[in-house]
């Protein structure tokens, strides 16, 4: 039986896909319900162990969702093995939340979407809001029965862009969601983040800089439709029907922006370039622009 859309927050109804968000209140009310699996996905690999939503399972962006050898995500067999072990079925409603304004939760949601998992939602406000509201937390790890999640091919075309797709994309909008310092080329990593090894600094020519965190309010919830529209349509010049590619440093912050563009604002052709700056900034011979202006798209 499909799980109903959470209509308790009037803000959601404005969004293109209100079914992709749920409130902390709704989650607490529906804890333990069959057909719903709550997943915590954090930047900090130990945060789940310090306490999580009762019944929530942990999926780590690095140790679970990335291939340990190739720079890529797990394949269909790996994803099936992971979800089977976590006790998630193909038709379950998966509800994801995490630290840092759902930064890594959005990344997990995007990867679930590459595998076509149909019903996957974010808890608006994420882990911090849940805790700030004093909702229940436990360190008890749930024992869910293993499932038989099917092996599904990962779709690398619809929601994901590779470097060659970016090169062919020039002339269409690019959104660089990193900090202004990374965009201009003052530095290659987020302020206060470790060096992750790009050899050049700057941005992909013609990219508009909209730091990902601008899409969330102080309490970690997504901004209203009109605020998001002002940011991305008026600010970054995106128009309905645009084919958009978002990128950051390794594709995690841009997963968050991908979620906003695709599910909240309703752009239908949005891809996340997960190679992002750690790849583009190290490629031989590709065009790069420094400074705070987008610069011109090279002719193809």
């Amino acid at each position, binding site marked *: 039986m499909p799980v109903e859309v959470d209509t308790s927050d009037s803000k959601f109804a404005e969004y293109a896909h209100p079914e992709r968000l749920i409130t902390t209140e709704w989650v607490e009310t529906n804890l333990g319900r069959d057909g719903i699996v709550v997943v915590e996905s954090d930047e*900090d690999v130990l945060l789940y*162990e*310090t306490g999580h939503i009762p019944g929530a399972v942990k999926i780590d962006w*690095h*140790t679970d969702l990335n291939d340990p050898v190739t720079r890529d995500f797990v394949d269909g067999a790996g994803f099936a093995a992971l979800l089977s072990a976590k006790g998630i079925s193909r038709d379950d409603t998966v509800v994801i939340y995490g*630290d840092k304004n759902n930064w890594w939760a959005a990344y997990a949601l995007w990867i679930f979407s590459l595998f076509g998992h149909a019903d996957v939602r974010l808890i608006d406000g994420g882990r911090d809001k849940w805790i700030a509201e004093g909702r229940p937390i436990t360190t008890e790890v749930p024992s869910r029965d293993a499932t038989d999640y099917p092996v599904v091919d990962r779709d690398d075309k619809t929601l994901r862009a590779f470097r060659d797709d970016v090169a062919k994309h020039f002339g269409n909008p690019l959104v660089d969601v990193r900090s202004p310092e990374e965009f201009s080329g003052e530095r290659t990593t987020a302020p*206060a983040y*470790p*060096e992750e090894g790009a050899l050049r600094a700057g941005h992909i020519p013609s990219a508009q800089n909209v730091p990902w965190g601008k899409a969330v309010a102080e309490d970690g919830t997504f901004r209203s439709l009109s605020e998001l529209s002002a940011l991305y349509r008026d600010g970054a010049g995106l128009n309905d029907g645009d084919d958009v590619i978002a990128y950051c440093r390794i594709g995690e912050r841009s997963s968050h922006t991908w979620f906003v563009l695709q599910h909240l604002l309703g752009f239908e052709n949005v891809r996340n370039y997960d190679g992002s700056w750690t790849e583009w900034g190290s490629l031989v011979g590709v065009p790069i622009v420094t400074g705070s202006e987008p610069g011109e798209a090279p002719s193809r």
Partner: protein
Amino acid sequence: MTGVLPESLVGIREEFLALDQQDRLMLLLEFANDLPELPSHYAEHPDLLERVVECQSPVYLFVEVDADNAVHLFATAPPEAPTTRGFASILVQGLEGLSAEEVLAIPADFPQTLGLNEAVSPLRIRGMSGMLGRTKRQIRERIAA
């Protein structure tokens, strides 16, 4: 300088390596929970502390070398960053009371040898390498002064 790992850190490493991956995480969490509070003279003077920019979470440290040449490392990191707290706690507890020379001789790859690469990921372990490197640099500054 060829590295020699002090007994205290050998012991911590053996503790980790004796466990399976999930229990290594739980041991790291125990370390995180055991990170000592900052003494009040540092808690009241955060300006004395050095930020470890290699860590993804705000972690600050300060190193003392006392009159007997014994090292005392102080560190602080928020509860929302248990991995970082765990790394700091391993060093705070493992380095306590060692001589400056003993700390300087710790192999730079010590963090990579704890068996946490699989459970925590190499990327995250870089934060601990940053703490160790900064600790050694502060010690060199103290003993040169």
